[in-house]
């Protein structure tokens, strides 16, 4: 079963600093416990499916320049480059 440590580990993996874990842990736990209901249904004959399309319905290969200077409407850019924090 999921415990506080695991919640903190997953939060870290999902890149979120948790300021306090208490409430999150108990609520996430409750939700996961509720999900246990999925163990009670027989799904052995089910297959995973999705929407389908044929190849010729896809976008045609055409270069259309984006007319706006998108970069200028974004933050953190410096001499054309986007600025990110240093890597480790």
């Amino acid at each position: 079963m999921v415990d506080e440590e695991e919640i903190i580990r997953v939060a870290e993996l999902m890149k979120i600093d948790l300021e306090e874990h208490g409430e999150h842990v108990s609520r996430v736990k409750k939700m996961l416990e509720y999900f246990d209901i999925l163990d009670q249904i027989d799904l052995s004959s089910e297959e995973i499916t999705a929407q389908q399309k044929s190849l010729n319905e896809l976008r045609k290969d055409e270069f259309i320049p984006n007319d706006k200077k998108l970069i200028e409407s974004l933050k953190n850019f410096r001499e054309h480059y986007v600025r990110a924090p240093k890597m480790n």
Partner: protein
Amino acid sequence: MTKIGLEIHCQLTKLESKLFCSCKANYREFEPNHNICPVCMGLPGSLPRLNQKAVESATSIALALTCDTPEKIAFFRKNYFYPDLPKNFQITQLNVYGDMSVGGEGYVRVEDKNIKIRRIQLEEDPGRIIYEGASERTKITLVDYNRAGTPLVEIVTDPDFESPRQVRVFLNILSDLLENLGVAEPGLEGAMRADGNVSIEGGNKVEIKNIGSFHDLEKALHFEITRQQSLFERDIEIAQETRHWDDRRKITVSSRSKEEDQDYRYFLENDIPWVKIDQSTRDRLKENMPESISSKKERYVEKFDIAPQVADIIASDRYYSKLFESAYSDHNAKDIANLITTDVIGFIDTKEKQENSKITSEHLSELIDAINSKTITRNSAKVALQEIMKSGKNTKDVLNEMDLGQVSDSSEIDTIISQIFEDEKQAVIDAKERPETVNFLVGKVMQKTKGKADPVKTLELIKSKLNQ
């Protein structure tokens, strides 16, 4: 025994647009961050729109590598955080609900061995980190997203290679094949990259990443094999890990990153429906596929009696084979092939020169005809080719303007020979004593006529004069 496997990434640069948006596939001509749109920047609310031709190109590659191609393909999200990844997930393919990437198992014949292809998948390239601040002094990372979303084909092989040399031969065959298909330009900077994995007898598998070029790949593989062998000899366990190629120090370094326990949480990318590729589409792609290099080579050898080495050179290169195919007629194919491999290759030896060259197939045919009818010498043909490459003028004009017509009039050649016999008395004596030195005199005639004298006739005349 050493086992090497490869993961090759090849950009489909021959496409006009990116994999999921209409920005340019070949991002190289743009200022940084000027080949981007809401889709490839992963802005909130934007949706990917799959490029039909990208699917077709990737399927052609799969077919060319004899891979199984499925009825339906699906896309998946590979979730991880990195600054060059605008959505913080990469749209790629995966075979979890059966084979659903563009290509399943196939193989490539390398010398006497079949190298097994495990799968081929279509995916998006990330952006580029231009500058990575890693030290205390540098506090930022700079990113250019022009490349983000460029269509990329990943080819994964089984660990079937036994040596770095075999890897090199395979990569040459593969790049020729991709170029021949007209879907990629492996020669473009960064257009084709490969990661490798290496294991030696009794050791664990080690992945090597961050390799910039094929040249470095070979070096990295050599280094890694040596490293593993020396560990083995000292009875030290070879850890299963990912190592990075340190280009500066030319060694592989253990990655401290937690890449191993990275959980990518792969799941279906539902913004892109599963794409149905029916048999008739695959048949059409197969039909439209250019002839394979090996089949071309075979045909050249069998049909025209061209030497295998010559056939190989021409078949492996798209430019030469195109030039050859459109120039040959059954009677002079062999001559044209030889003209290409002895003369044309000499001065059209880069992609750039190939692009700029104005030589057409007609030029080649006409030059061969002129040589065969003894209108010009081989030597003159070479001179003419150089001029034609630059100007593209028609053959006749070039031969006239450069005065390259062959001198085959006996009396004219005779006059020149008499003059040379006067000037080179010692050589004449030598030639009389040792007939094999006669070529010196022939050379003098050629020099004097700027290579235009009919060499056969010249020799004949010199010999008869020596016997007088």
